[in-house]
């Protein structure tokens, strides 16, 4: 499963692949590299996950991994976690 770490900020949120996911993709897809290494979603107010509408989660995963929906599903879907408290913020139904 693809894991994306989320860092909440007062002006948005930063999304980054978990190192284990990065290693998984590097081994599964030769030549794959983590570009972009992170995605920042800006917000004029302190970050609230309610701002994330359903397609956005998958879109961020696709941006970070450069995989399509089928490939993401083959890897067991995805989840978003907050590393500071290991809280699972969102989990896809594909898993």
């Amino acid at each position, binding site marked *: 499963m693809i894991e994306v*770490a*989320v*860092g909440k*900020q007062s002006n*948005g949120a*930063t*999304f*980054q692949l*978990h*190192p*284990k996911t*990065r*290693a998984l993709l590097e081994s599964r897809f030769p030549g794959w590299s983590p570009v972009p*290494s*992170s995605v*920042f979603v800006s917000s004029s107010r302190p970050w609230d996950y309610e701002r994330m509408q359903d397609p956005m989660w998958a879109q961020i995963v696709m941006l970070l991994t450069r995989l399509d929906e089928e490939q993401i599903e083959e890897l067991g879907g995805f989840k978003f976690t907050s*590393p*500071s408290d290991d809280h699972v913020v969102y989990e896809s139904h594909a898993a």
Partner: protein
Amino acid sequence: MSGKQSLYVGRAGQMAVMAELLWRGLNVAFPEVDIGDDVFVVKDETGELWRVQVKTASAGPLSDGYSAQFNIPLNQLENPRTPDLIYVFAIRGSSGWEPFVIIDRETLWQEYVTHGVGSVSQRSLVLRFSTQAGRLRCSDRDFLPYRNDWSKWPVIRH
């Protein structure tokens, strides 16, 4: 090392890193309120900003080199932010500053998770750098590429 001595050593490391950044033509600033970042680095021409965390330690002698130990809170290491954090490890040797070790947070997190660099104690990652025979290692990983890696900040001539 006493708590008071640690404050002096830590500040000396920060100043040494800031001096190098200034020499390279970048602007530097201390945050007025300490919230974990040690130094803000700004490229005046473009407004690009970097957040730098300086970690300082005194070198312990080895037969043909030295070692130094650092602690990094896991909460800080694992938490992505924008702009992201860059760690600069400053090691004070017997006759001056040793080459700095510069590594961004994401890369260090990767080293910890996938290569087992460091050891965890009380929710902190303990890193021990050692140099011998021209090599720089941390938990048997080659850290030489990070030694004096100022590539993020090429020298600017004003």
